[in-house]
């Protein structure tokens, strides 16, 4: 593992005894795209401000390339920020905004001009140098804010919900551009958002946060497929979350039946929650079904039908289906064992990882014999 560029160790932040961050530990490696994901007020922006140097921590260490930087002021840190509302200086032109940081460093004028031109080129606004900020659209302001930050050649770029003010189409386009930009520059991006779709699309690694804690971290696929608890499962994507009970390793009961699953290492008879993604459910005729549900309503979403249904025990089901169903009819649903994900109540990320390791190695030994 390379030397981490940013590290937070046991970081706690309190305002008037009200905890904002609770014992945060996170490590950012150089050259990766990280996302802090969580609902508003979960502390994700506070982490960003901690790294940028706009706020100090109550306890814990903030490290940059192995050096403790708690006491280093914001203007002496080799990180730059793209602000949520862009914070472009309205009394300067586009070029003056981008050049701002360089002029402070007393960079020679020809070099400033060259680097400003390069930065504007990079965000595809090469001809906009003389414009007023007020004459730019939201998307253009967004790009200038990025240009103003990357012209400083930071090792880490912090992005505070930079896409939230853009319309849906532009937002999608900017997701591609940001990802592309990060890969071309090869620097670390730390992106803050409450939009799970954005996080899944762009990140190498996601930190899911709630109420001042990092609940789970991992690749988008890991977090989507194996959410650690109810909150993460509910927050990331759409999901059916059902109460159930562990019968044995790889056997779980819910909805009045017993099913094969892919989880183990949980004590027998422990109450658990089962997550099934709506797109993993397949409609079938009741004879071949694992469960029978009654269709309540359905919405046409363009590329699929979103079907709401209820099972015999009154559990609600959300199903994504290419084909429509008829309201009020009883239909069967089926799924594969690996589509089920079992979550224990109150399990922490470390415990979850440890448990996963025990039976995944078991899997391998079983294959060998």
């Amino acid at each position, binding site marked *: 593992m390379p030397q981490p560029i940013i590290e937070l160790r046991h970081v706690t932040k309190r305002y008037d005894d009200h905890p904002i961050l609770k014992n945060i530990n996170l490590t950012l490696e150089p050259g990766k795209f990280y996302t802090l994901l969580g609902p508003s007020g979960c502390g994700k922006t506070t982490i960003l401000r901690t790294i940028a140097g706009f706020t100090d921590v109550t306890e814990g260490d903030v490290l940059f390339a192995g050096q403790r930087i708690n006491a280093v002021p*914001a203007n002496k840190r080799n990180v730059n920020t793209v602000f949520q509302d862009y914070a472009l200086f309205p009394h300067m032109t586009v070029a003056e905004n981008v050049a701002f940081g360089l002029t402070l460093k007393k960079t020679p004028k020809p070099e400033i001009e060259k680097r400003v031109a390069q930065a504007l080129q990079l965000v595809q606004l090469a001809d906009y140098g003389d414009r007023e900020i007020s004459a730019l659209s939201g998307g253009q302001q967004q790009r200038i804010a990025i240009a*103003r930050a990357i012209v400083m050649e930071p090792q880490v770029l912090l992005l505070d919900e930079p896409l939230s003010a853009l319309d849906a189409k532009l937002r999608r386009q900017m997701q591609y551009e940001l990802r592309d930009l990060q890969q071309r520059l090869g620097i670390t991006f730390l992106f803050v958002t409450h939009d799970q779709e954005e996080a899944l699309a762009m990140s190498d690694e996601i930190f899911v946060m709630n109420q001042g804690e990092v609940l789970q971290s991992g690749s988008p696929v890991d977090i989507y497929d194996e959410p650690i608890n109810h909150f993460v499962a509910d927050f990331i994507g759409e999901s059916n979350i059902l109460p159930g009970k562990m019968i044995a390793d790889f056997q779980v009961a819910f909805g009045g039946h017993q099913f094969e699953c892919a989880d183990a290492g949980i004590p027998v008879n422990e109450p658990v929650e089962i997550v099934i993604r709506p797109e993993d459910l397949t409609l079938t005729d009741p004879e071949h079904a694992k469960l029978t549900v009654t269709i309540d309503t359905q919405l046409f979403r363009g590329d699929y039908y979103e079907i709401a249904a209820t099972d015999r025990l009154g559990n609600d089901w959300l199903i994504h289906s290419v084909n429509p169903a008829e309201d009020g009819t009883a239909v069967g649903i089926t799924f594969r064992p690996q589509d089920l994900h079992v979550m224990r109540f109150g399990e922490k990320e470390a415990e979850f990882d440890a448990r996963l390791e025990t039976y995944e190695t078991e899997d391998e030994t079983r294959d060998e014999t």
Partner: protein
Amino acid sequence: MTKRKTWLYFIPYGLWLALFVIAPVALIIYQSFFDLGHQFTFSNYSTYFQSATYLKMTLNSVWYAFLITLFTGLISYPTAYFLHQLKHRQFWLLLVILPTWINILLKAYAFIGIFSQAGLANQFLTFIGIGPQQILFTNASFIFVATYIQIPFMILPIFNALDDLNPAFVNASRDLGASNWQTFRRVIFPLTLPGVKAGVQAVFIPSLSLFMLTRLIGGNKVITLGTAIEEHFLTTMNWGMGSTIGVVLIIAMIIVMTLTGDQRPKGGTPR
């Protein structure tokens, strides 16, 4: 009520404007073209612009108004900046505004007491061994009191401008490597300049025509245009000349308003 009738709401203020703003200004301009014998004439203007006394008086007024504005600004900007960072800033701001609720004459008389031979200021000077000085009826005391009176009118618009300033601009500036001073010079001050300009308008223009203070505190050593107008209307009864000076004052105000107005051209700054 239909949309067409909304102009009705403007009637009270419209009447006010016509009776107490437009009519008096028109009357002043009209009066300025008549001499003592009620004959139409341009002589008031030719007298004004040919007389060394009047021109010197004008220069004096502008100079003292400038000094008062300068000192007010030098005190008000740091004060507003400091107040803005306090926790109970609205309360402290109220304390700053409080003196404006007291009549200017009362404040002037209070200063006469403080600055007089046996006043508080001279008692203090005696106490520290300097001995009593002539403070009242000096130019310095005039500027001091005028500045004191004008300070709240300068603090308020600057405070509001600082309040309107998006803190993200300050963070952005720090983020890009600016020190506190660089942030102030290149971001905070330029962005709060409209507040300073509003303060200059609120202070400079009234300072041009100050007249009670010049007599009560300045001892009539400084003759401003305001004093001249008062003399012409109440003592020499030369309303024509008084009005002419009034017109000059109005023009001076228009010039100041234009100079401190928003001049930034749209679409690109000149290089």
